[in-house]
């Protein structure tokens, strides 16, 4: 653990990925300080999901590397992956298990003791209000329920870094409040979080650090105040990513009577 005491929670160095001639991520460098709550924002197709997948070892970069608390994700995967909990966007689960069974399965896979797994699963299901659906298989879950069970699997092994791709999408307001409380508590306890989101208000409310990515590059990064520079995050974001000054266009055939 010596490498990890001063190292940033997540460090991306020159990450690049090309999909059939399209440069999706263009040499991204990013540093997420230990103990920070880091927001990743950017327009659709900016490369957030691709960058985060490469950061946690789910997608092999063309060049560059990623470190989690100083452990390289590709050369020391066991150590790096033990420290991180991931909520990917739109990936499957063991679909024919119930929520509790998914958590038990994953806990054991992570090497946790049986009774620890049972206790944590119980608590997570109760807090995320999934315990009502005790007999429901994950394949029958709603979109929001899938997000919540995904979040539970990310939290289960008490990681030191959480990487969450759009954790609030499709989640109801009550559950969203619960998740916010959990995440704030996690950071207060010394954990670090990277999340991607399209909701600027939410990022402003939760995060202390922000990066704006656009067309596969980091357009701005730093503390929340540095990036928004006195404006609202939304204005700063629109200023950073839109090329035309013309502003928002309307659909003429929809607005004409």
């Amino acid at each position, binding site marked *: 653990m010596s490498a990890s005491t001063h190292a940033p929670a997540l460090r991306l160095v020159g990450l690049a990925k090309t999909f059939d001639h399209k440069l999706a991520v263009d040499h991204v460098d990013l540093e997420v300080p230990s103990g920070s709550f880091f927001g990743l924002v950017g327009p659709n197709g900016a490369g957030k999901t691709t960058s985060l997948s490469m950061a946690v070892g789910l997608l092999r970069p063309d060049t560059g590397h990623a470190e989690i608390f100083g452990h390289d994700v590709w050369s020391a995967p066991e150590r790096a992956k033990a420290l991180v909990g991931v909520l990917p966007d*739109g990936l499957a689960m063991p679909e024919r298990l119930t929520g509790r069974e998914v958590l038990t399965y994953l806990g*054991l*896979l992570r090497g946790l003791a049986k009774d620890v797994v049972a206790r944590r699963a119980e608590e997570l299901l109760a807090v995320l209000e999934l315990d009502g659906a005790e007999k429901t298989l994950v394949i029958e879950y709603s979109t929001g329920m899938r997000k919540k069970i995904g979040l539970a699997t990310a939290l289960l092994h008490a990681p030191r870094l959480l990487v969450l791709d759009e954790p609030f999408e499709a989640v109801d307001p009550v559950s969203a409040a619960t998740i916010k409380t959990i995440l704030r508590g996690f950071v207060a306890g010394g954990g670090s979080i990277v999340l991607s989101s399209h909701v600027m208000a939410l990022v402003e409310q939760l995060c202390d650090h922000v990066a704006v990515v656009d067309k596969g590059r980091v357009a701005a990064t730093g503390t929340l105040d540095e990036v928004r520079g006195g404006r609202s995050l939304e204005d700063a974001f629109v200023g950073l990513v839109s090329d035309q000054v013309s502003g928002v266009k309307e659909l003429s055939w929809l607005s004409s009577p």
Partner: protein
Amino acid sequence: MAVVALTMARMKLAVLRHAFHGRRAHTAGTGAALGVLSALGTVYLAFVDLDLLAAGYAVWLLGWLLGPLFMGGGDETLRPEYFSLLGLPPRRLAAGLLAAAFVGVAPLVSLGALLGLLVAGLRLGVANALVAVPAMVLQLAVFVLLSKVSVAVVGLALRTRLGAIVSGLLNGAVLAALGQIWIFFWAFGQTGVPAAVWYLPSGWGLLAVRGRWWALAALAVLVLLLLAAWAALLTRRVGAARASARGRRPITAGTATGAVVAKELRTWSRDLVRNHQLTFALSYGLCFAASPLIIGWDGMLPYAGPIFIVMAAAMAANLYGTDGTALWLTLMTPGASDVRGRQLAWLSVHAPVAIVLTVALTALTGGPWPLILALLPALLGGAAGLVPLISAYALVPGTDPHRRAGNPLRTSEDDGGLTGLAYLMLALVILTGAPAALAAVWYGWAGVATGVLTGALCCWGFGLLAERRLRAHGPELLHVMRTGRKPHTTMKSRFDQLSKTQKTIASWCLGFGAIPLVPQGILASVFVANDMLRHSWFLATYMPPGLRYPVAAAFILLGLAMYGAGVWIVKPRSPGSGPSRD
């Protein structure tokens, strides 16, 4: 009505034009060539014997009924779901989809086969020839519609456990009967073609041509009835297959491998598609081995268990693919062994069934104990090793379970790839049984030791290779599953780089190597060993005594050599020369 139908037919044509590129075009081309050959053979029957022609059309009917069930749910170029927001009435939707269903290679080839009706008509008279034209069209409509209705019925059945099991049993029985068709031909050879083939819907067109005019009307009525049935079934096709909601026993495992086993066992029992596959393999094995009883021979009965193992392995050939992107969890937990858990689970589902089946049936026939007991461990171990290995190396990207459309049999968009993978698995699992079988034939009980040894080695070694593959190429496999496309350094692209001659040689070797190896080699030596001489088309059984085993052995060698040559042509030359992957 006509507008909708025409539009859908044109949509289908457009989709097909986009789809037929590269490898898929290659597969489709091979399929079409085989289809044209069968069609020509069928038309030829019209010149020979109308009884045989009726039997031939019965086989085409079976092909239309069953083909889609094993080809990943059949032609789904246009899916009913695409049109659900248009608010079309079900009849019009069905008519439109029917029009689109007539566009394609299979209907065209079948129409070619139905030219036999015209030939038969021309030989009988002018009126008969005139009747043959509408008869051809109606007969084709019956084929296409029966196929659609059978897929829809099985799709519905797969929503309940009972339905999944019953349809698995039926499909297995019918496919085994097709595989053992020579027995029926043999039996027919003595009794003549049964008159029943004339009265199956596949024979009605021919009946009409022969002057039973009512048969034409019957065909028309059948088309209308099937169309109505299909329309009714389309409205019931909603959502994905449901799993049963009973029996949630808590996971009691305490280790990572135990957890994988627990997860897999639950999936085996809860996923109705897997229920279906398991009962299918069981029914196939039993019926295949039992059908020679029709001609009074029980010598194949003890092989029901081994056949079940081979078939079950073929069904599980795309194990990782059917779980889809859930692979990410395996990637995030590099310390735990996913492969070993899956192997244990596969064995604990299949081995008990295989052992009980084999021991019971061999005891019943007093059959060749050393050979059977040699095959059992060899095949079980071979299958348990090959299932994860093949599914990790030749992964066919599947559709994530929660994203599958109304047709539960359709686990992937690449149904040709799935079928190819199943055949590859069949051949490879049979190969893993070969050393033990040969040892048993030559040295008796020593074969059992060989079987245990090769089984254990295959299970351990192939599992290790699969695990290495997952560890080294996990992210690439996940990417394939996420996007449904293969990256560049697979065997397929290596295949594309070959010259045309090399491709042809490799396809012939890999495609037909099984014929000398299995029937003419292994099966023939089994027949010779059992003194089953002058046996249908098994050459070695016609040889004078001294030449029987050598001929069978030569065929086995030829088969192995063909596989060897095929693999040698296709295998990557220098592993390091592919595009760099870090």
